[in-house]
């Protein structure tokens, strides 16, 4: 790699690091000067509450949690929650029902499209609620929720994202002002 390119590469790498250091510098000290802390049990409670709310997107036992919500506190950045969801429980395969019919595929697709807006709304609420519970996280640090959507190979995924990611700094999350990315 030529010297100028190497310089630019290093500069690019230094940017997020610099941003973190800047944000840390901007963090107001907590009352009494104690270091910022996020308790494990607090995170765990939020994780399970997140699971319950995601399950509640549809009628009972029709939405599946395929990856239980996990929360991770990244020092200087914030808290990231990840989860994996099956928006509609797929039809079961058994001797009298050995294949998925075209009608069922259509129904699953339509139902998922119907539940997508509900999922987005629920994710905003989860972020708001999490931001409220994570008092130890500075207002300027991020609260992130990434939900991966699971699909079977036979599914029609047109119009359906593979993942929805919502994030905001803690203060914005409390007011529901979040950034949404869908992949």
């Amino acid at each position, binding site marked *: 790699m030529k010297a100028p390119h190497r310089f630019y590469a290093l500069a690019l790498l230094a940017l997020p690091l610099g941003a973190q250091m800047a944000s840390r510098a901007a963090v107001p000290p907590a009352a009494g000067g104690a270091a910022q*802390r*996020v308790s494990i*049990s*607090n*995170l765990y409670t939020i994780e399970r509450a997140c699971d319950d709310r995601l399950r509640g997107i549809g009628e009972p036992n029709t939405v599946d949690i395929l990856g*239980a919500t996990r*929360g991770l506190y990244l020092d200087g950045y914030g808290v990231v929650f990840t989860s994996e969801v*099956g928006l509609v429980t797929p039809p079961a395969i058994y001797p009298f029902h050995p294949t998925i019919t075209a009608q069922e595929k259509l129904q699953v697709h339509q139902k998922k499209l119907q539940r997508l807006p509900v999922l987005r709304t629920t994710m905003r609420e989860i972020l708001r609620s999490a931001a409220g519970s994570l008092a130890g996280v500075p207002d300027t640090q991020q609260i992130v929720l990434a939900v991966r959507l*699971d699909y079977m190979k036979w599914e029609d995924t047109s119009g359906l994202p593979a993942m929805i990611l919502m994030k905001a700094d803690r203060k914005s999350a409390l007011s529901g002002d979040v950034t949404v990315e869908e992949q």
Partner: protein
Amino acid sequence: MSAPSCSPFDLKDYFYRELADPQQLQVETHIKVCPACREELDRLGQTEHALFALRDEEIPQRIGFVSDPVFEPSPWRRALASFWNSGPRLGFASAAMLSAALVVFALVRPAPAPVVRVAAAGAPPAVVTAPAVSEAAIQARIDAAVAKAVAPMEVRHEAEMRQVKADLEGARQRLILAAEEYDYNHKKEASAMISAGLYAPPQHGTGEIR
């Protein structure tokens, strides 16, 4: 999972018609208004229907008792009966057909015909007897006769193989579906264990950075 308990009598007693008439009627009335019991009965019916997928097999060897020689078939009749009931019958029939074809062909084979060659200008005409039909020609005719005889069997065999391939492909697709469902349910169950608190963190008094 046990049957719903809202039915006035055990649904399996109803299913097997073990209830007295008034009790059967009570259950029938209940089923009309209870989707859960109706579904339970459907499942029992499906289970019974599935059991009939297992067909009875033919007994591999007939059982016979002999104590009086008068009733015992002669050795010749026994041998003939066992031969015609066995696999070689088809092979024998094919071979018999082929042999018959050969014999018939041999009997009706035309005699070699004389060939008259037109002599070159000026030369006296001559009659030349053509040589007998060659071995290769005979073999070719036999091959053609055999091919014609086995052609219907080959057509049927090909159709059967196509059906077998189609069945196998269908089975393969169904297995893929079942495997995918298995993986899905596996993930769901693992997550359910976590959600149910089986992997809850130890309770500490003060917070810790995670």
